[in-house]
């Protein structure tokens, strides 16, 4: 098994897949590196990849002419990033920028979709994990929206 395969097999997101399924998933992956300040993707770009972060820190942000870049979340070693490759129109809704040199495994979104279509068992399992991830992010976003540390309203 190559380094991508070894890394993915150890990663909690991929625990529980059969070795055959894992092998197919590994075929979609490649090592990528982003220098500090480099964008992984920008809002409106075609969403081509699902990232599993090996090292570094990546900030998901949205740009506004008045406020500049506003970070809404960071992902770090062990986190996974991006599900827009799964949902039409397959476009990123945010920017993602490396805050420091970052390493990741990028899984090809189109190949992942094909894999999920042709192997519904794998597809369902993959989707459940993405749904779990979405649930976590939704909860975190709700807490952020509450603006917990602002002055209590009278």
């Amino acid at each position, binding site marked *: 098994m190559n380094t991508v395969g070894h890394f993915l097999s150890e990663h909690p997101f991929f625990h529980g897949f059969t070795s055959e399924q894992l092998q197919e998933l590994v075929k979609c992956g490649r090592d990528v590196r982003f220098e500090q300040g480099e964008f992984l993707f920008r809002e409106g770009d075609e969403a081509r990849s699902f990232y599993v972060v090996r090292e570094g*820190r990546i*900030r*998901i*942000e949205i740009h506004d002419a008045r406020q*500049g*870049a*506003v*970070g*809404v*979340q*960071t992902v*770090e070693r*062990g986190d996974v990033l991006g599900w827009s490759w799964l949902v039409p129109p397959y476009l990123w809704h945010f920017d993602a920028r490396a*805050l*420091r040199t970052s390493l990741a495994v990028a899984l090809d979104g189109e190949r992942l979709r094909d894999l999920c279509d042709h192997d519904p068992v794998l597809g369902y399992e993959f989707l459940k994990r993405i749904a779990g991830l979405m649930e976590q992010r939704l*909860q*975190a976003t709700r*807490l*952020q929206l*509450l*603006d*917990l*540390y*602002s*002055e*209590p309203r009278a």
Partner: protein
Amino acid sequence: MNLVLEERAVAARDPMRPRPFRVRRVHRDLPDTTTLEIEPPGPDHSCAFSPGQFNMLYVMGKGEVPISLSGDPAKGGCFVHTTRAVGPASRAVTELRKGDLVGVRGPFGHGWPVDVAAGGDLVIVAGGVGLAPLRPVIYHVVRRRRQYRRVAILYGARTSSDILFRRELEKWRGRLDLEVRVSVDRGTDDWHGSVGVVTTLIPQVSFPLSEATAFVCGPEIMMRFTTRELAQAGIREDRQYISMERNMKCGVGLCGHCQWGPHFVCKDGPVFRFDRVARLLWQREM
């Protein structure tokens, strides 16, 4: 006994009678948050306290407000309070100047069980000004570092400019025997650290939390979600402690203003073992 000594003795006995402290030093931490050092009227007035306890501070003519102690419990001679201006009385506390008098009743309540946590791993989770009641714990742990195993401090703030005790957090992060992680809810361009709610820092702690004790302080909603995330990380509810804030008035469990289910927050708390209050924390009517 002369009159002055008698008065002091009465003040020491009577928890309802404020002692006149004088503001020795004022430090503006954030635009709405101030740390005061206040000294007692004489050397025979003790400033001893346990981490997590609070005093009732009375600003003449403005009102009285419970404020937790945020200084080093090993350093006597004065009380240190960090106050955020959220109402008229707390705003009056933040507007005190060097030399002003402030009435003090306390210290009151049960604090953080630093001895229970000794000998094991410790994770401290604070949000916003909730770091203030936990700072005495951090001083205590740093001073007795050998008594604790692995220690993580997780802190969440609104933005990078709202980070309380920033210089101290940076100093603690510089130590090789403390794991300090800070996250902000909203990442501005000058912030290159973590962005996201403080709960997202819990899975990032570098050691397994299953055997750790957790001390949590912050807004109630933050504590609810933090305790849930800590449980998911394997920390039993009876190893988690939270610091509650309710409408404390008398400080000794007489007036009932701070009653919370069967508890009086001022007397039985403000620090509670989580398994004893978990049910109340999730109850809307409480």
